[in-house]
C-alpha cells in the first residue's frame, strides 16, 4: 500500500514523575506521505521518546499529552486493541538492538511468518514462502536455507536485515527507525542505510529516522529536525540545514565532526545538555552557546521562521553563519593560541 497518509505531531509532551521531569517539551512535526524525516539529537534529547510515543511505546510511568494523527486516526486516543492492529500493519518500527527484538528460540523464518499471518490470513506454507521472499528482498543470500537458522546464527547486520524484513512484511506505510545502525560498524551501517533507502522508495513508505549522527541522516532523509533538551530547535530540508545551520547547536554538531584533512583539535560544544529537571527560563542551549546574551537567557524562545520551510529556535540565527564554531577551552592555552595562528 503506497503511503497516502500524513503523520502530524502537535505539541507532544512526555513527562515523568507527575510532570516534574519533562523529557519531550512540545514537539510538533509533520511527515508527508512518502517523505523521509530525520530526527537528530544527543542521548536524552527526547528524540527516541518522540518516536516511541507515536506507537504508544513510551515506558511505564510516562505521561503523554498533545496530539498525534496519522491519516484520520488520532493515535493518542485509540484504544490498546486498535493500536495493536496499527502496529506492524500501517506503522512499523525497527530498533537499535536487533538481538533484543528477536525471539531467540524461533527460527527467523518462523518469526517473519508469524508476523505475516498475524496481519493477513494465510496458511503456513504461504506464510513461509512470503517470509523467504521478504528475506530475499532485504538481501539475505540463500534465504530459503537461512530461514531455518536462529537469530544467534546471524551477524548484527544480518539480524537488522531480518528485523527490517519483519517490519516490512505487512507492508506498512510508515516506518519508524530508532537508531537502527548505531550498534553496527561503518561497512554494515552503509549497507543497511542503502537497503532502507531503496526499500522506502520501492514501497513508497514514509519514514521517521532517529539518529544521533547528522551524517547518517544526511544520507537518507529529505528533511531533518534537530532536537535539544526535549525541544525541536531546528527544522528544514536536510541539505539547507547542513549547509547553512541557523541554530548554534546545529552548527556546533556539524563543526564537531572530523572532516577530511581536518587538523589540530576537533571543535566541540563545551559543557553538557541540561538535566531533565533543570528548567532555565530562556533558551535551553544558552549556557553552552557562544552567541547567547541576556535576551536569550530571559525569555522562552519559540521556533522562528528562517526561510521557506525552515525554522530555528534562535533569536540570533542571523549571526550563526558568521559564528566561529565554538571551540572547547583547551587544558593547554598555548596550544589554542597556536591553533588560532594556523587559522583553524
Amino acid at each position, binding site marked *: 500500500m503506497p503511503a497516502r497518509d500524513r503523520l502530524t505531531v502537535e505539541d507532544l509532551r512526555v513527562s515523568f514523575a507527575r510532570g516534574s521531569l519533562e523529557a519531550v517539551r512540545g514537539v510538533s512535526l509533520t511527515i508527508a506521505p512518502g517523505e523521509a524525516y530525520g530526527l537528530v539529537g544527543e542521548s536524552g534529547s527526547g528524540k527516541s521518546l518522540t518516536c516511541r510515543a507515536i506507537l504508544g511505546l513510551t515506558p511505564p510511568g510516562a505521561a503523554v499529552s498533545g496530539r498525534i494523527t496519522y491519516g484520520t486516526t488520532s493515535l493518542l486516543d485509540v484504544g490498546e486493541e486498535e493500536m495493536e492492529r496499527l502496529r506492524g500493519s500501517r506503522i512499523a518500527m525497527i530498533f537499535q538492538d536487533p538481538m533484543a527484538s528477536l525471539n531467540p528460540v524461533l527460527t527467523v523464518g518462523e518469526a517473519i511468518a508469524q508476523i505475516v499471518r498475524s496481519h493477513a490470513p494465510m496458511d503456513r506454507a504461504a506464510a513461509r514462502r512470503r517470509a523467504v521472499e521478504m528475506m530475499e528482498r532485504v538481501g539475505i*543470500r540463500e534465504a530459503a536455507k537461512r530461514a531455518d537458522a536462529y537469530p544467534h546464527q546471524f551477524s548484527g547486520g544480518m539480524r537488522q536485515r531480518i528485523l527490517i524484513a519483519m517490519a516490512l512484511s505487512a507492508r506498512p506505510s510508515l516506518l519508524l527507525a530508532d537508531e537502527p545502525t548505531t550498534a553496527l*560498524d*561503518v561497512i554494515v551501517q*552503509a549497507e543497511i542505510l542503502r537497503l532502507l533507502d531503496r526499500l522506502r522508495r520501492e514501497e513508497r513508505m514514509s519514514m521517521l529516522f532517529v539518529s544521533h549522527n547528522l551524517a*547518517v541522516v544526511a544520507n537518507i532523509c529529505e528533511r531533518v529536525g534537530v532536537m535539544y533538551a526535549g525541544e525541536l530547535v531546528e527544522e528544514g530540508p536536510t541539505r539547507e540545514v547542513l549547509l547553512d545551520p541557523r541554530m548554534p547547536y546545529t552548527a556546533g554538531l556539524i563543526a564537531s*565532526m*572530523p572532516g577530511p*584533512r581536518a587538523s589540530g583539535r*576537533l571543535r566541540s560544544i563545551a559543557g553538557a545538555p541540561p538535566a531533565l529537571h533543570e528548567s532555565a527560563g530562556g533558551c535551553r542551549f544558552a549556557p553552552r552557546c557562544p552567541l547567547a546574551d541576556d535576551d536569550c537567557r530571559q525569555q522562552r524562545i519559540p521556533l522562528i521562521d528562517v526561510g521557506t520551510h525552515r525554522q530555528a529556535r534562535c533569536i540570533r540565527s542571523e549571526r550563526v553563519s558568521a559564528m566561529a564554531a565554538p571551540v572547547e577551552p583547551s587544558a593547554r592555552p598555548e596550544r589554542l593560541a597556536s591553533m588560532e595562528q594556523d587559522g583553524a
Partner: protein
Amino acid sequence: MVPEPILVAEGVTKSYGSGDALRVFGKRKLASRPALINASLSLMAGETLGIVGESGSGKSTLARNLALLERPDAGKVIFKGEDLTKLPESALRRCRRRIQIIYQDPYVSLNPRMRVGDAIGEVLHVHHLVPRDRITARVRQLLDQVGLPSAAAGRYPADFSGGQRQRICFARALAAEPDVLIADEPVSALDVSIQAQIVNLLMDLRDQLGVAVIFIGHDLELVDFVAPRIAVMLGGMIVEMLPPQTSLDMAKHPYTRALLAAVPSLQARPSVAGEPIAELAGGFPLSGCPFWDRCPYRYDPRCEKETPPLVDVGGGHLLASFYVHSGMAGVSALHT
C-alpha cells in the same frame, strides 16, 4: 642516536576456539581462521598510531595481545627492549601498568559499587605509585587533569554521564603512569558533541604527558584526525600501513577505500571513495587473501590461494594486495 621504539610487535598470532569446547557437545573440531595473524608494528615513545578495521577484523584482539592481557600463540611483544611474552606472570605484573587500555563502553568498564576516588586510588595503591597519605591529593590531581572537579572522587559512576565516565577511565588509566595508552574505540559509545571533547582530551593528555597512543576505531576519518600513522586491519592481518603525512586519498587497498566510502559524511568525497563492499557474513575465507570473496577487484588467481605479503610500496607505505602489487591498474585510476 636513532630513537628506540617503545613497543614492537613481531609476528603476533592468536587463535581462539581450538575446538575443545565444541567437542564436549560431540561436534567435530571446526576449522577457523586465527583472530590475529602475523601482526607486526612498532610504536615510538610519544607517537600516535591509529588502527582501523571493520568489526571482527582483529583490532581489539591486537590491543589485548599488545597489553599482554592475553598471551599470543606466536610472535613477540617487545616493550622497551624486553620480550613480554617470555616473562613469567609475576614479572609481567610489574610491566603491565605501563600499557593501559581504555575501552569503548564507559558504562561497563567502571565498578558501579566503587567510588570514583577509590577506583583511581586503587591503582595508585596496588602499584605503590605514591605513598598512602598522598593518594587523595594525587587522585584530585588526576581528576583535574581530565577536567573533572575533585568532588567527583566521592561519587559513584552512576552519577556521571557517558563522557564524564570516559574521563574517569582516562584518569584511572593515567594513574598507572603508562608509557603506552591503548584507546579501543573510546568514543564510539558517546554522543557526537561529547566525542569531540573526549578526542581533544586524549590529544591534550598525549601532548602533555608524552604517552604513546594506539587509537583504535572503525571511523577512518576520526582515526586519521587523531593519528598521523594508520594501520588498517582485515581478517586478523594488517593489510595496509599509511605513513605520516600520507593523506587518506593515498590509501590503495580496496578494503581501505571501501572503509572510507562507508563513513557517513556531510560532504561527498568523490576522489577518495572506493567501491562499496558487502559486510562480513559468515567469517573470513580460510585461505588466501582475507578479502578475496568481497573484493571488487579480484582477478588474480593467487587471491584465493595465497596470502598477499605486506610490502613497502614507497616511503613506508605498506600494502598487502595482489591487485595493487601486480600494478595492473591503480585503484585510483578506476575512479578518476
